[in-house]
C-alpha cells in the first residue's frame, strides 16, 4: 500500500515543489491519557491521494486519532502513544515533530485564524518554517485552492478575525495548503459552518483529491458519503470496520456499523 517510490525520492518539502501525496499506515496503535485508554489496537492504512472519513459516536477516539498523526496529542499532558505510525514508511513517533507537521497539515473543528492579516495568516507556515518561495504567488494560489481569492483579493491586509466563520475556516485550509503538506487532517471541519459554507468546503475537499491524502473526521453521514473514498468506523476506541465508502454504507459487515449508519442506536 505504501508508495516506495515517493519514500525514496523524498526531500524537504517546499511550497514551490510539486509533491506526491503520502500514505499513512497505523499499526497496532494505543493511546492513553493518564489512566484512560482512548484508542486500542488500531490498524488502518490511509491510502495516498484518497479521502478517508473517520466516523463513530462521540467519545470513540475519532478526534484523537488524527491528532496522533501529526503528534499534536503530545501537547496535552499525560498523553502516551504506543505502537507504530508510518508516514511513507517512516515512523512518525521517531521523527522531529516540527518536520512531521510540515508534511501533515491540520484543519481544526473551530476555525482558528491567527490574530493577524489574511495574508500573514496564509504565509504564517512558510515564514515559521523558513521556506523560500514567492510569497504573493503562494498567497494567490492557496486562496484560489480554498475558493477564497475572489472574495478576499482586495482586502488581504485586513484582519482575519473580521471574516465570517465560513471564510475563516476556508482561510485555515488555505493556510494549511501553503506549506504544501502530503497529508491533510480535517477534524470535523464543517461542524461550525452554515450549509453554504459547508458546501463550498466540501467542494474544496473534492477538488484536492489526488493531490493530498485527506483524513476527515465527521459525524455527518451525508458528508462522509459525499466526499470520502474510504470510511473507517471507530467504536469504543477500536477500529470496527474499514473499507470503501460504498461497501461500508451499502453492505456493512458488522452490526455496530449498520446500526450507527442507519441511526438506530447511539
Amino acid at each position, binding site marked *: 500500500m505504501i508508495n516506495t517510490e515517493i519514500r525514496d525520492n523524498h526531500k524537504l518539502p517546499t511550497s514551490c515543489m510539486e509533491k506526491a501525496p503520502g500514505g499513512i499506515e497505523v499499526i497496532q496503535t494505543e493511546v492513553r491519557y493518564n489512566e484512560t485508554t482512548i484508542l486500542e489496537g488500531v490498524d488502518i492504512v490511509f491510502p495516498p491521494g484518497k479521502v478517508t472519513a473517520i466516523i463513530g459516536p462521540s467519545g470513540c477516539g475519532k478526534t484523537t486519532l488524527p491528532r496522533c498523526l501529526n503528534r499534536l496529542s503530545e501537547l496535552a499532558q499525560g498523553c502516551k502513544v504506543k505502537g507504530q505510525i508510518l508516514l511513507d514508511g517512516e515512523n512518525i513517533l521517531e521523527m522531529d515533530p516540527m518536520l512531521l*507537521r510540515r508534511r501533515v497539515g491540520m484543519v481544526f473543528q473551530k476555525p482558528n485564524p491567527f*490574530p493577524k492579516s489574511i495574508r500573514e495568516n496564509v504565509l504564517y507556515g512558510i515564514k*515559521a518554517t523558513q521556506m523560500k518561495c514567492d510569497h504573493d504567488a503562494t498567497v494567490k494560489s492557496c486562496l484560489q485552492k480554498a475558493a477564497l481569492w475572489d472574495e478576499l483579493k482586495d482586502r488581504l491586509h485586513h484582519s482575519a478575525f473580521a471574516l465570517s466563520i465560513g471564510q475563516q475556516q476556508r482561510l485555515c485550509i488555505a493556510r494549511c495548503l501553503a506549506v504544501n503538506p502530503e497529508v491533510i487532517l480535517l477534524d470535523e471541519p464543517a461542524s461550525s459552518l452554515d450549509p453554504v459554507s459547508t458546501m463550498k468546503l466540501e467542494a474544496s475537499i473534492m477538488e484536492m483529491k489526488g493531490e493530498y491524502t485527506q483524513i476527515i473526521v465527521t459525524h455527518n453521514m451525508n458528508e462522509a458519503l459525499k466526499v470520502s473514498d474510504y470510511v473507517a468506523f471507530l467504536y469504543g476506541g477500536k477500529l470496527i470496520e474499514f473499507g470503501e465508502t460504498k461497501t461500508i454504507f451499502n453492505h456493512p459487515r458488522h452490526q455496530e456499523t449498520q446500526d450507527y449508519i442507519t441511526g438506530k442506536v447511539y
Partner: protein
Amino acid sequence: MKILSAITMVISAFALVMGCLSLSLNTLKAYPTVLLFLMSLSFFSLFILVRQTTKKNNWVMLFFCILAAAFAVLHMILPEYLYGFNLNAIIHSSFISALLLIAIATPAICYSLFYFFGATPKALDISRYPLLILPALLILIVYTLLLAQVVTKGVSSFSWKILITAFKSHNWVETVWKDGWPIRISHTILQAGMLNHILGTLLLMLMTAIIALIVGVGVGVYISEYSKGWFASTIRFSSQVLRAISIFILAITAYNLVRYARGTFLSSIICGFYYDEIGTKHIASGSYLTAAIFLALLVIPIIANATEEGIRSLPKEISEGSFSLGASREYTLSHILLPWSMPNIITGLILGCAEAAGSLTVILFLAGTGEYGVSPWNGVTSLTYFIFNGQFGRTLGNAQFYDLNYKYQYMAAVILLVITFGLTIGALTLKNKVARRFKGA
C-alpha cells in the same frame, strides 16, 4: 405634591453638596443649621401631604423630620472644637455638621425622588439612585478639591526658568597665586531649579520599565508556557508575595546595600558618583541603577501577572494551529502569544511606570539633591523627592535646598501629574492601536 418634593429635592441636594464640602472646608458654619431646619420642615410638609392624599401615616418620614430638627438644635449648641469623649484629637464642628447634613440629606433626597415620580415601583427604583451615587460623589469631590488645590498652587508658582535650570548649591575656595602671594577666592553657586529632577524622574521610569519589562515578561512566559507543576506555582506564589512586601522593607534593604557597597569596587555603580565643579569625585548615596532595580522589584510581579493573563486568554486552538503548521515553540511565542498579550503587558507597564514615577519610599534613603547630572550612575533623585524636600528639607538638614525650592513644590507636583497623565494617555492609545492590529476588533 410634585412641587413640594421638587423643593425638598433641591434643598437636600444643596445640603448634600454642602455636607461633602464641609468635610474638607471649615468656613461654612452658617449654612448647616438653616439647611437642617429647612429639611425638617419639608419632611414635615411631605408627611402631611402624604397623609392627606393616601390616608396613611409614613412614620419613618416623621422620624426623619424630628431627627433633622434635633440635629439642627444640636448643631446650634455645638462648640467650635470638640474634645474629650475619649477622643485623641480635637475635631472641628464642621466635620460633625458634614456628617449630620449627609445623614439627613440622603434620605430626604430619596423620599423626595420617590414622591416626585409618583410613588410607583419605578419611582422606588429611581429613589435608590442617590444611595448608589453618594459614595462616587464623595470621592469625586474629595479628589477634585485635592487636584484643584495642587493645580492652582502649582500653576500660580509656575516658572519657565525653574523648569529649565538645574538646582545648584555649591561653595568652593579657589587659591590663586599673585605676586608670590596666595589669594583665596570664594565661589558660591546658588540656583533654584528642577530640571534634573524632571529628567531624573523620566530616567528612573525608563530604566525601571526596561528592567521590569525584560524580567517580568520572561517570568510570565516561563510560568504560563514552559514550567509545569510545583516549580511554576512556587514562582507564581513568590512573585505574588514579593508584591505584598512592604515597600519600606525594600527601602531599608536598598539603603543597607548602598551602605555596605560603599568603598568596595562596586561602589561607583551601586552608590553612584559625581564630579563637582573643580573635578573632585564624590560618592552619592545611591545611583539611578540601584533605585531602578529596587523599583523594578515592585513592578515585575505586575508585568509577570499581566503577561500570564494575556497568554492564558489566547484560545488553545490558535496556538495549536501554529504548532500544526510546523512552527517551533519559540516562533509561536514571538509571533502569536506575545503580540496577543501585548495590550495586557502595556497595561502592566503603565501601572509600573506610574508606580516608579510616584514612588518615594523606595528612593527615600537613596535620593540626593540631584545637582550633578542625570545618568544611570549618578546619584538618584526624582520629582517626588523634590516635593518631599520642599516640605521637610529644613528638618532633614537640606536647608539650602529647602530655602531655594520650597516655593516650587506644587509646581513639581503639577509636572509629576502631567508626566503620569501623559504617560497613561499615550500608553492607552498605543494599547488600543496594538489591540486593534492584533485582535482585529
